[in-house]
């Protein structure tokens, strides 16, 4: 449990050469699956994540239906081979928690009241995991919702900040997550910057929190630009095809 000391920042550079406030490389593809209503694929550092959306559609079982709005459900799943030590198939407690907070985050922006009694299902598959998967998953899911044509008040963009070797940095990768001092994943409505997901663990003073929070919001803003570009490209591609 005790985290060994490890020098994670040297001469202002991190293990992978990034500056403290620098994101890993992010690549987004829209509409990658045939059966789903909408889908997106995100590569973010070594993370590889697929998100798919089905719906709005009939919700089963019936007792889950809400006569005033659609119910958005989310399943976050880690593929057995996505981590170095094989993960047993099926949901564990961590996945259940991430699924819950992700569904809540997306419900903040989707115009659920337009589809009373309906269900909207969001599936997030982590194909390769390297820290920050819940942020990658939400980022992908949000693009998939847009690809599905589901009306949203805003796009959700996510990013983490954290503290490693005493310094607040953006977007932790695996080694930084393992040996760092704290992690603060957030997701925001891209334009208003209101937070829709916020979790944190480790040790942060109030001041460190504020700094990390603002860094993460800034990261999410950069993520949003990449989401927007990918969506724009997909719309244009469709136009060209048409």
């Amino acid at each position, binding site marked *: 449990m005790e985290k060994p000391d490890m020098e994670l920042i040297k001469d202002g550079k991190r293990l992978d050469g990034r500056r403290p406030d620098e994101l890993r490389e992010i690549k987004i593809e829209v509409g990658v699956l045939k059966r789903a209503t909408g889908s997106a694929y995100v590569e973010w550092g070594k993370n590889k994540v697929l998100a798919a959306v089905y719906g709005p559609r009939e919700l089963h079982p019936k007792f889950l239906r809400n006569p005033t709005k659609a119910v958005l459900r989310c399943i976050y799943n880690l593929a057995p081979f996505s981590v170095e030590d094989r993960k047993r198939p099926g949901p564990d407690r961590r996945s259940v928690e991430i699924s819950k907070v992700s569904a809540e985050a997306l419900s903040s922006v989707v115009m659920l009241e337009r589809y009373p009694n309906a269900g909207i299902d969001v599936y997030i598959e982590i194909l390769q995991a390297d820290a920050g998967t819940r942020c990658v998953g939400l980022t992908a899911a949000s693009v998939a919702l847009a690809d599905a044509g589901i009306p949203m008040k805003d796009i959700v963009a996510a990013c983490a900040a954290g503290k490693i070797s005493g310094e607040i940095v953006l977007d932790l990768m695996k080694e930084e997550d393992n040996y760092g001092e704290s992690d603060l994943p957030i997701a925001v409505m891209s334009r208003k910057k209101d*937070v829709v997901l916020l979790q944190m663990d480790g040790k942060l003073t109030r001041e460190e929190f504020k700094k990390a929070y603002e860094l993460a919001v800034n990261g999410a803003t950069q993520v949003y630009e990449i989401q927007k570009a990918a969506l724009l490209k997909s719309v244009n591609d469709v136009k060209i095809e048409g």
Partner: protein
Amino acid sequence: MDIEAYLRRDYVTNLIKEGKRLDNRKFDEYRKLEINKGYVGEKADGSAYVSLGDTKVLVGISMDVGEPYPDAPTSGVMTVNAELRPMASPHFEAGPPGEEATELARVVDRGIRESGAIDTEKLFIEEDKVWVVFVDIHVLDHYGNMIDASGIGAIAALLDAKIPKYEDNKIIRGEHTVKLPVTCTPIPCTTAKIADCVIVDPDMDEEYAMDSRLTVATTDTINAMQKGGQGTLREEEVLDAIDLSFKCAKDIRRLVEGN
């Protein structure tokens, strides 16, 4: 129920807009908190019964001997489990923990784990053998803010816990040696956002009415946070919630560490 919930939601929201709460508390006021340590002391290795207003949670600690994790071979192990017993609410069902119970257990777990409250190095017995600390949260009456009641009960029960005697590779049940080594007292404090106001310790009716909640577990630093609900939070609201949590935690900590 649904209509009643809807009307209460409305009523609570309007009250909050006027600066009031149903039970006349101030926005930054916790409900009455009572902690009964050692409640099931004849069988459990540690326990605490918590009443937070009408919310009742019993937490029991069971110590067992097990294997350490491969990546920390000299450290003891803690595991937190939460059961939302069907007697606690008409909405709880028997069966394995659902997403609400899972989130509850994980948030309590993080507050304790990340603060380093248990000195796990002192739970080493011999190669491949360490003490395993089971923290079992039993929610008995759910009248709002289960997370705080559970988190407070968990740390209180840990402070009450003793390590059983261990001889000839066997646990001697009913006899104990020393207290479980606890180094600090992490306290979770939950605020809710209703009608753009941030209030502390929401009760059941306020939970129906809230847009979102934010739990902040603190020692001298923040150790764990968790937002819940489908609403949003602005940066100032988050910072407000942190300040309130640090403030409330002081009184609660005194109570937890007492008697």
